[in-house]
């Protein structure tokens, strides 16, 4: 099998399920912050004591952070391809406008640059959109379950089910094919 060209690599990466290291770190940092927020709520509203509850808090935040980061990655993979298709013409216009006066640049080079740019734009947009979507969905499900569905359940079980359960549900929803 022959070596892939740069253009082919970029094209492949736009369909790739893997995320860059920077993107993955961003997902984990976001997931950690979002998983810690409910713990403050349980500390304040349900008056869970730090000394009694830190093990449960640690379990809840680690599992929730992992699940949320996974959901973000899944969601990004779904969104990225759609965004490449949507933003393609706009990115082509930007590249054509930018290099219109550059007579030295060949059409192939312009196409290559447009492909890079499309991938870059889609990567950024899908990262932001997946974080927004995943966070919003998780926080909504978590609040509804913690304060309505499981309002009368003991705080420890309420915390575990409402945080990890909601994160698991968000992961499940992010595994949709389309």
């Amino acid at each position, binding site marked *: 099998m022959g070596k892939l060209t740069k253009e082919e690599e970029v094209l492949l990466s736009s369909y790739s399920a893997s995320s860059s290291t920077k993107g993955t770190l961003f997902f984990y940092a976001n997931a950690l*912050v*979002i998983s810690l927020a409910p713990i*403050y*709520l349980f500390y*304040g*509203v349900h008056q869970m004591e730090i000394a009694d509850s830190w093990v449960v808090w640690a379990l809840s935040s680690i599992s929730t952070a992992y699940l949320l980061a996974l959901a973000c990655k899944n969601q990004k993979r779904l969104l990225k391809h759609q965004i490449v298709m949507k933003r393609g013409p706009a*990115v082509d216009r*930007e590249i054509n406008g930018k290099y219109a006066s550059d007579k030295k640049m060949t059409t192939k080079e312009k196409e290559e640059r447009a492909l890079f740019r499309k991938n870059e734009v889609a990567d950024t947009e899908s990262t*932001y959109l997946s974080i927004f979507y995943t966070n919003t969905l998780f926080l909504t499900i978590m609040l509804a379950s913690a304060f309505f569905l499981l309002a009368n359940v003991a705080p420890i079980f309420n915390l575990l089910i409402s945080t990890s359960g909601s994160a698991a549900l968000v992961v499940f929803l992010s595994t949709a094919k389309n």
Partner: protein
Amino acid sequence: MQLLLSLLAVFASVDAGAKLLVGKNFISKYALASNENVFEYEIINKGDSAAINVVLDDRESFPSDRFAILSGSAHVTFAKIPPNGAVVHHVVVVPLEPQEIIIKDVIVDYTDAKSKDLKRVSASPLVRGYDHFLSEKALKGVLGVHPRHFLIFAAIALPLTVTSALFYSRSVSRFPIKKR
């Protein structure tokens, strides 16, 4: 041996006749003013004869100018409580305003059916750590359900979420989809 027998005789005489034990419990979840609060009285006869004309009096705990009694009574008479028998009585009161819980002994007067002696027993109430009938607003403060907690929660959770949405919308406006 004689000493032992005389001691046994003393204990036997203590248990002889009707012997009532009284308990008063607050059984509502929270002590709330302007709400129904349920108190439960339990009288158990541990003696070997019946208690008759058993009069439970707890009116001092619920003065009529500060409480409305919805059901039951703070002054009630039971005709007879047999040996090893028990009666339970509930009183539902509404404190007219937030106030201190009055801790007064419950007094039970009764007559021993066998010896016809008049006896009195009293007990302190058990109100599970409450010392006031609180207003609903004060109870929310005690329970910790406070908007401040939700505001801090939002301050932790929202910046990343909102920033992501803003960056996304900025990118969308930079690369608009032209309608044909």
